[in-house]
């Protein structure tokens, strides 16, 4: 009894008490689903016949690795992730540098910037389906009217164009995130560094390479890691825009997992896909952070 009293009156106990709600929530909503998903990856589980659920060892993974669609999805997920990240990083840095200049009206654009990031993906995907509609979409209309193209482009109904469209959507929606991170960092770059480089004789491009980029290094590493994880796992943008089609040409692993679980009712295979994705991202992130020596730079 006395010991309990002592424990409760100590600072440590009070601290534990304060974080307890978060820990409980985290366990219920974060740890439990992950553990459950991992467990499920080793079970055969049909939601219509839960009573038949059984431990199957690595059978789900064997199924996965022998399914050509899994490998296609993995390849497409990689292409979609790499190209999305590449374009939004380049665009993001470029736009951030433009906005960083104290030009008239830039405050307005800075406000506008968040728009794509705020609007729900469902709304955006629906609007984009309209915009890219071959017959009545505004994109084709403009391109035709200005004479850039002669024939309507079938944006979402050929494999290449569908993939390009999903990448465009992702770039459009998440470039603002890159811009905001980069802009925040740009504002802390000491101006005297640019002055020093000017006096040393560096032109605009050299100043970008030798002053701006090194300062952006850390923020870009972080942005790229997070954007890669989020994009690789992304489901709703692809599914809402193309449903993974035409055919399976825009399947990524998230869409594949969804289709296995919901359409084919192979929840175990779906969960196994999730486990594979998790492991790949984990290994990828660690290797990437090692290569870039993140955090090792002495400031």
């Amino acid at each position: 009894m006395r010991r309990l009293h002592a424990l409760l009156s100590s600072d440590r106990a009070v601290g534990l008490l304060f974080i307890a709600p978060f820990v409980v929530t985290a366990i219920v909503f974060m740890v439990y689903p992950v553990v459950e998903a991992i467990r499920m990856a080793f079970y055969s589980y049909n939601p219509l016949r839960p009573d038949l659920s059984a431990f199957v060892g690595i059978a789900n993974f064997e199924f996965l690795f022998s399914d050509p669609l899994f490998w296609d999805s993995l390849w497409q997920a990689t292409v979609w992730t790499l190209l999305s990240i590449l374009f939004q990083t380049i665009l993001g840095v470029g736009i951030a540098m433009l906005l960083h200049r104290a030009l008239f009206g830039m405050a307005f654009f800075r406000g506008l910037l968040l728009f794509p990031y705020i609007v729900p993906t469902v709304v955006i995907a629906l609007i984009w389906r309209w915009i890219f509609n071959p017959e009545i979409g505004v994109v084709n209309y403009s391109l035709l009217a200005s004479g850039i193209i002669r024939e309507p482009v079938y944006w979402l109904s050929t494999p290449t164009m569908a993939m390009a469209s999903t990448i465009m959507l992702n770039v459009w929606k998440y470039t603002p995130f890159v811009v905001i991170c980069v802009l925040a960092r740009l504002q802390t770059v000491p101006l005297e560094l640019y002055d020093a480089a000017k006096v040393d004789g560096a032109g605009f491009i050299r100043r970008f390479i030798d002053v701006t980029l090194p300062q952006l290094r850390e923020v870009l590493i972080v942005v790229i890691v997070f954007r890669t994880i989020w994009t690789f796992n992304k489901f709703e943008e692809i599914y809402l825009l193309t449903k993974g089609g035409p055919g399976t040409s825009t399947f990524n692993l998230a869409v594949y997992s969804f289709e296995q679980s919901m359409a084919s009712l192979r929840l175990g295979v779906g969960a196994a896909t999730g486990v594979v994705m998790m492991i790949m991202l984990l290994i990828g992130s660690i290797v990437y952070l090692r290569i870039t020596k993140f955090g090792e730079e002495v400031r």
Partner: protein
Amino acid sequence: MEVRLERINKRFGAVQILKDIDLVFPSRKFVTLLGPSGCGKTTLLRMIAGLEDITAGKIWFGERVVNELAPRDRNIAMVFQSYALYPQMTVRRNLGYGLRVRGTPVSEIDTAVERVARILEIDHLLERKPAQLSGGQRQRVALGRAMVRKPDIFLMDEPLSNLDAKLRVTMRGELRRFHLDLNATTIYVTHDQLEAMTMSDLIAVMHHGVVQQYGTPAEIYSKPANLFVAGFIGSPPMNFLEGEISNRRFLVGDGSLPLPALQVEANAQKAVLGVRPQDLSRAPAAGQDTITGTISLVELLGSEKLVEVQLQNRKRMSIQLRADAFVEMGALFHLRFDPQRLHLFDKESGNIIPASN
């Protein structure tokens, strides 16, 4: 190379920062821009470097107007207050950067970098990054980066202000030595009058964007042109007494003091009398030419003693005496003024009322 400023003006929006600056920096001299914080020193230096637009006026380098010339084409070097070293580059690469950008052959860069590193005694630090250096070492690297290119004009913006007091004194001497070695015109910005006095050939005292006085350290110290310069230069600061000129005497409160002959004799003119603590002495007894007060504070400065005397009109004067002088708090003190060591200023304009000699 001689640098000449001709009616230089600078405005940021509606705010006038620099007004009609006319200055000549003679070739190979060490000239200091001295003034309190915010008076426009950095702005002026940046204009000379080409980093800041010129609102009006001309800047000449020798026979050439450089108003439109980019910084890289001015053959200047600049040391920044924060040093502005490139954090991701080693000291070696920092030093060589200016040469590398200009496409100098690698072997030449190496030779130049190593020569400068030897002079500045930083050759053992060449492979380190700026973050791994102490403040003083960073400062040397910044200096080195400026020296490598053999500039015509060497610009320095408070390069010592981030160093501790002792290192600052050492570096003053070294900067002066580098200046002599470098053979470049040096323009040095500081708000520290001691730095200015000890290092410069010429000092331009600035206040509110206007040059208050331009001259050698000795001139500025012994013949301050106005109240601002008189109060800004010298440590401890000059004492000021308000009063009136009358029959070659200065009437202050209940006393009066003898004045030197003035170039234009003035009578019944309101004036401010300035006298440095070092130029006051102690009279054994009250007399015609003394003022009496009581000792209100004694500070031992080491080799000197700073005594504060409160006059009858509650005005306080400080006097610098030898450390072994006997003074007692609360005792009477008779101040003796040397007429040759007084400075008289017009109360209205603050300008000096020159003595005839």
